[in-house]
């Protein structure tokens, strides 16, 4: 089976590196981008199998990203958002816009992996 492609948008290089490492260990192909602009450019080329994005991103927030994917690119790719715990109202609007799941900071990589595999199963194996 070909590797599932994950686009990871995280501007904290430390967290990004850790999550990339763990996702790759679990057999995903990971592209890590550090800002919203780069993410948008990447999506123009190809839509991955799953998108993980921090909500607070430079240039282009995670919420804007959800809007862009669902309404401009018309894609139903699973999206998991990473949020700082205090942004409750953001999360509600993110769900309304079509985000599939979220995880709050500090992110536990193991928990994220479970959420990722659940979204993949839900979306591609039913």
């Amino acid at each position, binding site marked *: 089976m070909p590797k599932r492609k994950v686009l990871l948008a995280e501007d904290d*290089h*430390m967290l990004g*590196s*850790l999550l990339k490492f*763990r996702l790759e260990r679990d057999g995903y192909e990971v592209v890590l981008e550090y800002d919203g602009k780069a993410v948008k450019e990447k999506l123009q080329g190809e839509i991955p199998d799953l998108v993980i994005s921090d909500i607070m991103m430079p240039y282009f927030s995670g919420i804007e990203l959800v809007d862009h994917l669902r309404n401009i690119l018309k894609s139903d790719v699973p999206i998991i958002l990473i949020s*700082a715990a205090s942004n409750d109202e953001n999360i509600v609007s993110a769900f309304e816009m079509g985000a599939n799941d979220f995880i709050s900071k500090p992110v536990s990589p193991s928990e994220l992996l479970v959420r990722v595999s659940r979204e993949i199963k839900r979306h591609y194996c039913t």
Partner: protein
Amino acid sequence: MDTRELLTHLEKLEYGLDSFSFSELKSAEASKLKESFEAFKNGLEEKVFGLPISDAIQTENPVNEKYDFQEGQLVANVSHEIRTPLNGIIGFLDLLQETHLNPQQKELVNAMGSASKNLLGVINQLLELSVLAAGQEKFEKVSFNPANLVNEVSFLCKTLINGKQVELLVHYDENIPKYLLGDPSKLSQVLLNLTGNAIKFVEKGEIRLHVHLKEEKNKKVFLEFVVSDTGIGIANEHLKHIFESYRQAEPETKLKYGGSGLGLSIVKEIIEKQHGCLAVSSTLGVGTTFKVILPFEKVQIHQDNENKTDKTKPVDISGKSILVLEDDALTQKLMGNRLEQWGCKAYITENGLFGLQLLESHHIDLLLLDMHLPGMDGFEIVQRIRKNPKFKNLPIIVLSGDAYTRQHQNFEKLGISDFILKPYNSEELLEKIDNNSKQMEQKIEEILVEEVEKQNEVVQTVDLNPILEECLEKTELLDELIRLFEQNILEFIGKTKMHLQSRNIQGVGFAAHKIKSSLKMLHANGLIKICEEMILECRTSNDLERLKTLFEDFVTKYPKVEMAINLELKRIKYKL
């Protein structure tokens, strides 16, 4: 003759500078580079064209010899004065290379770099020759293992062959005593030069390096070194000139093979000053043979070295990351090969600034440092490293060609951990690396015990175990994450400073939010508390002064936390 050589390089440099757009760069480096270059050019012209040439024309009188000596002195002085600004040029070119250049600019800068380095090479050789000719060179008398030396030379030369169908055959006479007294660094210079030359001129065939015990008389040992090749050969009429400075057999040779033409003159001086002799014979199209006979002294009873090196306990330094700052391409190659063989990760560069950056960005266990580097010299590099408390315990081993560097009183004071005299054999190198690493680990352990005691008082603790677990116990990844963490902190400090100045409270809150997640990953509880207070402050009272106080508190406490992180990291890495 030398003038022409220098000026050719200069022209190339000048051409590079002319077509280079300074207006596009506008950087301080560019103008400094230009200044440095102009100073160099003016100095050179003044020195070279200001020579009292008329004096030299008066031949056939005893003044002539004195003049030769003076000329040697003059060359030595001029070379020194050229070298300094030239080192400046090379240093700034290196800096320039790290700025954003378009491909065309990059090519031009590269061309200037290689022209400058060629020029430096010529000047170094010129200086060496003049020092030798003036009889100012002091030859050493130390005990060395000639078999090891020949081995190292042949290893180095083999790396030079690179792809050519050339075979280097070494024959070493077993009757040669194991240890001799003499100048090993000069001997290896002679052998490297002769063998290296042969490799340069042979396209296909064989090169032989034979070493025989020629004679043993009283305390003296005469060794004969024969370097023969199956190369293009040298015509009889040119043969008698080949040891003259700036002579290559035929003008075309220079074009084809490069080189300053000083190498053989240096070899000849080295041999004659040690009361040895050098002979050459050649047949066009068949090959050339150089014969060297050099006297050495016997070593009576050899010191404890014998059992020290022959000890059976294998030394293991695998897994170490070693930074090598060395400008000689051959040594770079040799080091790279050796370190790789021993299972080390080697970072090799000749650029001091780049080396310092590598230290900051990578985990390095030990530094091997050549003191004579283009641009920033070894002493400055050591100084800069020791200035940073992070590298207080980094072992720095200096590689040096001259014995008197070792007598430098301030060696230890400067922060140099150990010393290896060139040429060294691989066993020596291995042992030094091993010893110094062990010493460092011991030191760290002592510090740890001390610090752990101290830490009971310090509130700012960290816990790296959870993140290590998330890294699946991969310490290299943890290392990398800590490095990224430190960058995050620097970014936070910089951004917050800026936001506080511009009274951008929302910006401060955002930055504090970001760094809080990073701090949480390392469980740096003391700093997390400060961040939380800052976030709260931004959301509620917007008191700028209070925010400033909190931020200052963060900045003063952070170094202690950083230290705690590094200690934890070392504890984990060395399983203490």
